[in-house]
């Protein structure tokens, strides 16, 4: 583990897009919570595969097919190790975390959830961890319950045991993509288990930013998504306890996931391939492998420290400059908090803010961030969200503040 602090200038040099200008301004990318940019190492890993060793995997005995298979399975091993997964065979590649959660809902859910069964979610979930359960609820008549928020935008665990009473599954995110809140995953997983429920963790916003160890968390299912953690699009991963993977029925059917097929039926393959139907995201897995290598080289502790420092700087800068005119939706300190900051100006719509700051080269998200139930809880239709990552520095915060000031002037009544 690297104890060296992050050398942000060096990191920035690894991200080609940061050399770009928009509207004649330096690109200030503050939307990594939506999707991160990609370092050269990731792009080159994929390019190298396609230029040197590309073939379909698991299928050919010829040299480049062996190389491609080794690259794909090697990537699985590296991602597994990055997530603290005991054995690569416990890690299923998916398109993204959305598919990972749908896989659990449809495979484990269909086999285990019946009318009247309870699934507990929280008020800060992303649609990816809501809609699959709604679909199941409509099909099966399962009941959904919601863990509410406290005044300071954290999960209110004071009635958790009552909510979990009789539940079969507790599905929650490790980090909120709107509020920046980091949840206490081990505590929530323990509570689930104490109630006899399984714990599913949506780690989409956690894995890119903090060291993640699935065994330390003690959960049962953990999903991540590659494009938010410096990897390419179209690759994500689901870890599940091997006992669960072994007994879960297949999700999608096709090549690769079978052991035998006849006119009368089929026998599924071993895990993880049982859940990997058809030609998989081969180059994308290799890209994600390179991404976790890159993060490991930076050191996840250094990443966390950098992000915490930058968040503290940003919270202070926003407050100093705008005071009460700017409302922050999320914890005001860096304690158990990631580098995602949602906010609103009194009387100016999030969308309009985002449009004006774009003119200054600053990319922030405006909208419901795929968390409409949370928006209802917050009582707003949308927020503006700035999110920071390894390639951001204080000058990016400064650019944001200046651009926001300009937007405030533009819409001044």
């Amino acid at each position, binding site marked *: 583990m690297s104890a060296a602090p992050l050398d942000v200038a060096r990191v920035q040099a690894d991200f080609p897009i940061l050399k770009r200008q928009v509207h004649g301004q330096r690109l200030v990318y503050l939307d990594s919570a939506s999707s991160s940019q990609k370092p050269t190492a990731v792009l080159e890993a994929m390019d190298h595969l396609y230029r040197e060793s590309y073939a379909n995997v698991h299928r050919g005995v010829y040299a480049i097919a062996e190389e491609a298979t080794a690259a794909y399975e090697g990537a699985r091993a590296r991602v597994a190790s990055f997530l603290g997964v005991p054995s690569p065979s416990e890690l299923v590649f998916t398109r993204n975390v959305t598919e990972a959660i749908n896989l659990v809902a449809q495979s484990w859910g269909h086999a285990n959830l019946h009318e009247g069964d309870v699934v507990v979610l929280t008020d800060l979930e992303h649609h990816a961890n809501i809609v699959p359960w709604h679909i199941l609820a409509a099909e099966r008549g399962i009941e959904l319950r919601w863990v509410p928020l406290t005044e300071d935008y954290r999960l209110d665990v004071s009635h958790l045991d009552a909510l979990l009473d009789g539940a079969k599954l507790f599905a929650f995110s490790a980090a909120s993509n709107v509020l920046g809140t980091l949840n206490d995953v081990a505590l929530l997983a323990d509570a689930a288990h104490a109630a006899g429920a399984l714990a599913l963790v949506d780690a989409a916003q956690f894995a890119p930013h903090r060291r993640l160890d699935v065994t330390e968390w003690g959960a049962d299912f953990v999903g991540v998504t590659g494009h938010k953690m410096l990897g390419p699009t179209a690759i994500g991963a689901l870890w599940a306890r091997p006992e669960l993977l072994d007994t879960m029925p297949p999700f999608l059917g096709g090549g690769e996931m079978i052991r035998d097929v006849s006119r009368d039926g089929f026998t599924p393959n071993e895990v993880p391939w049982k859940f990997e139907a058809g030609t998989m995201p081969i180059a994308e897995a290799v890209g994600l492998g390179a991404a976790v290598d890159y993060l490991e080289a930076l050191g996840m502790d250094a990443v966390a420290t950098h992000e915490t420092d930058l968040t503290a700087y940003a919270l202070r800068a926003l407050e100093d400059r705008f005071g009460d005119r700017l409302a922050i939706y999320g914890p005001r300190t860096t304690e158990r908090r990631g580098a995602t900051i949602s906010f609103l100006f009194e009387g100016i719509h999030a969308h309009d803010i985002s449009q004006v700051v774009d003119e200054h080269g600053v990319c922030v998200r405006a*909208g419901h961030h795929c968390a409409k139930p949370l928006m209802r809880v917050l009582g707003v239709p949308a927020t503006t969200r700035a999110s920071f990552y390894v390639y951001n520095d204080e000058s990016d915060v400064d650019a944001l503040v200046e651009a926001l000031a300009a937007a405030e002037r533009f819409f001044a009544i």
Partner: protein
Amino acid sequence: MAGLEDLYREIILDHYRAPRNRGELPVPPAHQVEGYNPLCGDEIVLYLDIDDGVVRDVRTGGQGCSISQASTSMMSAAVKGLRIEEARQLIRTFKALMSIHESKLEGETDGEDGATLDGVRLGDLEALQGVVKFPVRIKCATLAWNTLEQGLDEAGQPQPA
């Protein structure tokens, strides 16, 4: 490269700051219809008082960005008093305006005859044509109109042949 002033014309900001026809109408006799923009979370509610084939009154509610709010306001002002067929024609015209490709607009002289399309006068609405240069915002501008169309359909009014 489109600038902010193309998007945020003064008249748009004016409708945004002082929206026309905000409020509700008793339902029934009025029809209530809701629209969402899944992208940005904008929500709009329309109350339509339709009588004898004429849009007698319109009230609007909901929340949204300046473009969707201004477009709602302008729409409400534009359709009030129109016959249903006229309102539908205006919807079509407005949507056509919104689907004109940027490159066509670039060549246009500034609004000289841009104010009519298919022979329909657009008036204030013309100010919204700059939105076309910001493709993501087109849905903000059309939300009110799609919702109106849905409202006219739901109100069971016969569609023109």
